[in-house]
């Protein structure tokens, strides 16, 4: 399996999907349950960190955009530093996934969506107090009306799919 996946990744003729921000190139087939348990564990930890770090707080987002506290900049800055070290360690020691596959970092290509979509996301972030992940943690921490925000976000992604060909990229 390992050998096949290396050949697969080293083959320039195969286009790897880069559409999804967290593109999952896993080749090994797993049963539905075992493949989802690892995400469930990481997701639960992620959710707890979101709530305890108060980064799902609408007030913290306001504070950040008013430059009145270091809190959010500290959280995101620390995450970037941890990310840099993790990526470096994975590349340096060729750390493999649980299935023994290579970890591939996709190079992102610039497109105008980064600018236009990014600005739209920023406007929404400041008003909802949440980016896509924290929406779930907001619901989980008892703000049930955020279910509506989530459904609207889902409609938003659907509309993107509908208009995609006509949008500048």
């Amino acid at each position, binding site marked *: 399996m390992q050998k096949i996946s290396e050949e697969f990744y080293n083959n320039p003729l195969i286009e790897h999907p880069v559409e999804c921000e967290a593109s999952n190139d896993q080749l090994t087939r797993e049963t539905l349950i075992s493949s989802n348990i690892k995400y*469930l564990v990481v997701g639960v930890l992620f959710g707890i960190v979101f709530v305890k770090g108060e980064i799902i707080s609408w007030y913290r987002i306001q504070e*950040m955009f*008013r430059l009145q506290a270091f809190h959010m900049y500290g959280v995101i800055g620390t995450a970037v530093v941890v990310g840099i070290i993790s990526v470096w360690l994975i590349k340096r020691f060729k750390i493999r996934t649980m299935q023994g596959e290579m970890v591939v970092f996709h190079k*992102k290509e610039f497109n105008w969506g980064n600018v236009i979509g990014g600005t739209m*996301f920023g406007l*929404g*972030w400041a008003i909802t107090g949440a*980016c896509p992940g924290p929406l779930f943690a907001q619901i*989980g921490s008892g703000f049930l009306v955020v279910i509506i925000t989530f459904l609207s976000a889902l*409609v938003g992604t659907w509309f993107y799919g509908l208009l995609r060909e006509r949008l500048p990229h």
Partner: protein
Amino acid sequence: MTGVLLGGIVATQFLSDPAPIQISANTVRDLEALHVQVDGNLMPASIFNMDNLFTMKGLIFFVMGGFLVGFGTRYAGGCTSGHSIMGLAGLQWPSLVATCCFMAGGFAMVHIFFPLIMRII
């Protein structure tokens, strides 16, 4: 998705800190000037409650806000974790561009549109 939802429930039900959230005094002052009560919860209950669902507040904060988050994230090719954290960590310049635009959108909302919205509704 389910994991983050469960994490939110676990953190709130079992690991909760009863002390109110400590927001900067300047933010509290600015928000109160816009008639947003700082109530010590994670989110202002005066905005994020079911009763506002079919009002202008609901339309702007939940429906429009959610749409912008969903559409914007897909169009930008990532969100805070994809671009600002993993993208910057991987030293990818398109992610830096996206992150700057996230911030620009947020600053525009908080400093320009949000005061207007709060004046209208």
